[in-house]
């Protein structure tokens, strides 16, 4: 941060986190720590095959195993075998197959739930799964999306008669502009399947209360509020009898933005047996049963004039739904749909997406959710267009991006970007990167035929954050709204409870939200307790995903704090015997204008509001402010990321030598937290480019569904990062904030791959598949050499 800080309020300062003390001392409350008396532990028999008819299922032998209390298949569970709903039916004719908690007659992916055992300890529950008698008659596995849509393919959902889930179209007119183009470049990119892999595995404890229909469910979830509504709809438990608690949650990245089968099973079985039921996944279960992300085949074509003006873009996606639809599976590619044109001006944009069922784990949100896929494709094709035009890739970007004076700007995809300054972020990034020196070194290495070539990768990205204006969500057929709620209570002692509908799992909301409220209320950050993640204490909210918590939830906190101050002002005026308009609110106290000696601290007002001995007529006791805010629009963070990639052309080994990220996330509430979010996003985006990928064989068997073989980057796999920010405040968000949770993950993947391709382009390489492992890069080089020979 180079900006001068206003040190009069906590807003904008890198305050150390309130969350850290308990996390650093192991005094945490993860769901798996919860041990209630009488708990039954659930173990799940999962399908070992991708596609099969269940020809026999007998759970009764499990019942005679030690410590086993119950065992169920779909038949035994009957009406309690709830189905997972999809809340984003993107088209009128979308195929939405039944998605029962326990498979009914057929399994559709490795990890599909077949039966459960309940025992008094987790070891005996797991042991007893062995006793269940189950037989499968395997069917042809559907793994490849193009084959899935072909004639003669096996079909996952017999009633549908097709593996096509939906076709969605947007835009038009591309063919007209293409006819005028001098240059047309097209590519097929494969945005591979990823596994979110939050470090805390999922866990759920469902506890019925006495003989009533009341149920408390603790879950390692990002969405306690949404979960409560969905759980009520699925189970029939009255919503007002359900309390959902997300205690300490160890990461999510979209993977815990879900209603899962295991949550429904634990709740229904706890209800049936009248005892607490607990389930904690193993990591290897997680990697087949927690939803996956990405997995799109992207055919993209760009048309331009010979001097580099982009005319239009055409995108045709195949999006892998997996075996079933989780809650927002079909909508994920549509979050990307708006972002393919990115920061570039153009006249036409055609988009089509076909959702496809395959015998794989269902997909859904993973950090960025649709937007990383879009950003990857556009930033890659821009580099390919630059190569085709023999133009510097940054020059091509500058020629086509929206100039800072052109905002607000309505894009060809139908969005209106409120603000941005791509020039400023790029200038800062180039400066930090040392572009000229690196280009000189690249030239030198090329000329000398150095076996280690240097490549420079560029990504000038934007994203849409702050999900979302409710009307827009409605227009997209999403079943819920995108508002957020906050209640601020000042207690008689002057301490504050800040109740938020956001549900953090590592983002530092307790600190950042305290900073927002403290800056308005004029009190200390330490005097505020942030209450979250418990529908019993924080009843309203739409939770945490889509970089929405600050962008939307922050607005609610601001407004609720201001509402509290306005109520306090009326009480203070009564006490100071003046009119509210005569008071100014300075550093936590109301002062009579022109006579600052006559003053009342807000804490004293809170006590007056509590005793209610002397309140003005018509003013209700207690001091609190509430607000529920629907955002005016999305927010549009942007930035320029640059990567220097060394590629050993003899071995295929790739080394990320230098990474610069200049992000513009608008006003920063806590720059330390912002920077941490960027770092973590970068690691995941770089992970996609270089290390991660979930793969299946032709029978639909996962090839690397554990942490030994699915390569989450470790410390030696990454460098330190050079990060900075420019600050262009959002004009549609009252705090000027935009959101930062996903930026790093969205921007970095194309920067890395563009860098590798740049290093190898003189050898004839025009693309490298992800993850760009040494073997993949080496094979790509060999293929290019063969092509030249």
């Amino acid at each position, binding site marked *: 941060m180079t900006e001068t800080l206003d040190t009069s309020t906590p807003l904008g300062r890198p305050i*150390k*986190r309130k*969350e*850290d*003390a308990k*996390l*650093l*001392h*192991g*005094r*945490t409350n*993860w769901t*798996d*720590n919860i*041990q209630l008396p009488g708990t039954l532990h659930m173990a799940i028999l999962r399908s070992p095959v991708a596609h099969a008819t269940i020809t026999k299922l007998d759970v009764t032998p499990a019942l005679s195993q030690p410590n086993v209390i119950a065992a169920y298949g779909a038949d035994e569970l009957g009406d309690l075998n709830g189905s997972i709903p999809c809340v984003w039916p993107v088209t009128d004719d979308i195929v939405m197959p039944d998605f029962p908690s326990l498979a009914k007659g057929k399994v559709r992916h490795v990890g599909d739930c077949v039966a459960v055992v309940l025992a008094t300890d987790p*070891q005996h529950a797991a042991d007893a799964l062995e006793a269940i008698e189950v037989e499968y008659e395997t069917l042809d596995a559907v793994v490849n999306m193009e084959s899935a849509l072909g004639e003669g393919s096996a079909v996952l959902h017999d009633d549908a008669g097709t593996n096509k889930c939906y076709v969605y179209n947007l835009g038009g007119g591309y063919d007209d502009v293409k006819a005028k183009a001098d240059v047309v470049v097209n590519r097929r990119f494969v945005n591979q399947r990823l596994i979110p*892999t*939050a*470090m*805390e*595995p999922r866990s759920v404890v469902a506890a019925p209360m006495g003989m009533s229909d009341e149920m408390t469910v603790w879950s390692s979830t990002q969405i306690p509020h949404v979960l409560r509504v969905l759980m009520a709809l699925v189970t029939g438990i009255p919503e007002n009898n359900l309390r959902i608690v997300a205690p*300490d*949650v*160890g*990461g999510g*990245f979209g993977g815990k933005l879900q209603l899962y089968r295991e949550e429904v099973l634990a709740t229904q079985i706890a209800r049936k047996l009248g005892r607490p039921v607990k389930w904690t996944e*193993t*990591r*290897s279960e997680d990697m087949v049963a927690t939803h996956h992300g990405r997995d799109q085949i992207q055919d993209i074509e760009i048309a331009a004039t010979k001097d580099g003006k982009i005319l239009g873009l055409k995108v045709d996606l195949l999006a892998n739904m997996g075996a079933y639809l989780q809650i927002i599976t079909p909508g994920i590619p549509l979050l990307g749909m708006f972002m393919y044109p990115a920061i570039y001006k153009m006249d036409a944009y055609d988009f089509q997406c076909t959702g496809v069922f395959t015998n794989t784990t269902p997909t859904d949100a993973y950090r960025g959710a649709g937007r990383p896929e879009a950003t990857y494709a556009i930033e890659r094709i821009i580099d390919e267009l630059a190569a085709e035009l023999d133009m510097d890739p940054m020059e091509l970007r500058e020629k086509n991006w929206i100039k800072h004076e052109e905002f607000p700007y309505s894009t060809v995809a139908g969005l209106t970007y409120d603000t941005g300054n791509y020039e400023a972020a790029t200038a800062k990034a180039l400066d930090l990167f040392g572009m000229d020196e690196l280009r000189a070194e690249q030239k030198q290495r090329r000329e000398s035929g150095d076996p280690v070539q240097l490549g420079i990768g560029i990504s000038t990205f934007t994203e849409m954050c702050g999900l979302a204006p409710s009307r827009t969500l409605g227009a997209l057929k999403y079943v819920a709204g995108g508002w957020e709620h906050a209640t601020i209570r000042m207690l008689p002692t002057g301490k504050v409870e800040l109740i938020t509908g956001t549900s953090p*799992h*590592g*983002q*530092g909301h307790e600190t950042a939200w305290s900073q927002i409220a403290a800056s308005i209320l004029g009190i200390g950050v330490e005097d505020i307790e942030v209450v979250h993640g418990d529908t019993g204490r924080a009843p309203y909210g739409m939770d945490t995903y889509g970089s929405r918590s600050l962008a939307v939830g922050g607005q609610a906190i601001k407004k609720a704090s201001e509402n509290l101050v306005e109520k306090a002002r009326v009480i203070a005026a009564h006490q100071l015997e003046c009119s509210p308009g005569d008071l100014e609110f300075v550093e936590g106290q109301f002062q009579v204008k022109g006579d600052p000696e006559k003053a009342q601290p807000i804490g004293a007002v809170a006590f007056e509001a509590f005793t209610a001995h002397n309140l003005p007529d018509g003013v209700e006791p207690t001091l609190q402010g509430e607000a529920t805010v629907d955002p005016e629009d999305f927010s549009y963070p942007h930035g320029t990321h640059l990567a220097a990639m060394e590629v050993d052309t003899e071995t295929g080994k790739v080394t990320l030598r230098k990474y610069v990220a200049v992000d513009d996330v608008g006003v920063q509430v806590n720059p*330390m*937290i912002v*920077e*941490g979010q960027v*770092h*973590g*996003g*970068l*690691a*995941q985006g770089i992970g996609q480019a270089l290390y991660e990928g979930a793969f299946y064989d032709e029978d639909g068997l996962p090839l690397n569904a*554990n*942490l*030994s073989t699915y390569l*989450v*980057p*470790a*410390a*030696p796999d*990454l460098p*330190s*990062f050079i990060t900075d920010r420019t600050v262009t405040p959002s004009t549609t968000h009252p705090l000027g904030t935009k959101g930062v949770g996903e930026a*790093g993950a969205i921007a970095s993947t194309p920067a890395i791959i563009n860098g590798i391709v740049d290093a190898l382009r003189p050898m004839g390489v025009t693309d490298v598949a992800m993850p760009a492992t040494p073997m993949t890069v080496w094979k790509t080089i060999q293929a290019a050499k063969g092509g030249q020979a």
Partner: protein
Amino acid sequence: MKHISVNVDGTQYEGEVEPRTLLVHWLRNDLGKVGTVVGCDTSNCGACTVLLDGRSVKSCSVLAVQADGAAVTTIQGLSTGDEWHPVQEAFKECHGLQCGYCTPGMVMSTVDLLGENPNPSEEEIREGIEGNLCRCTGYHNIVRSVERAAELMGGAK
């Protein structure tokens, strides 16, 4: 069942365990030492790292019976909470944690790393914590935290 006697965080515990019981499960389920967590089932993630007779081990890869007669230090025994261990202080100061799930293991590995090498280079730090996965921080601030902890603990500068 096997009888074991293990000193954990300064208290001597006697226990009867199934031979297959992992140390981490004994710590969590029998002793209530839930500060130590489980993140995988292939010994890759390191979230369960504790000190066994002063050296870091992944407690998912040690049987409880193997700890018989030994001393175990978990994140909950590293400091009182009133006074923080320098590694804990450094992680807070440098924002070396986000969700905090890898943190107990990361901190215990760091304690061992700095015991062995009081002034590690960045590369040595990255290699030293290779067995501890973090999904939140990208390791950037964890590396800064370990450097800062080395400083606080008097490592040569």
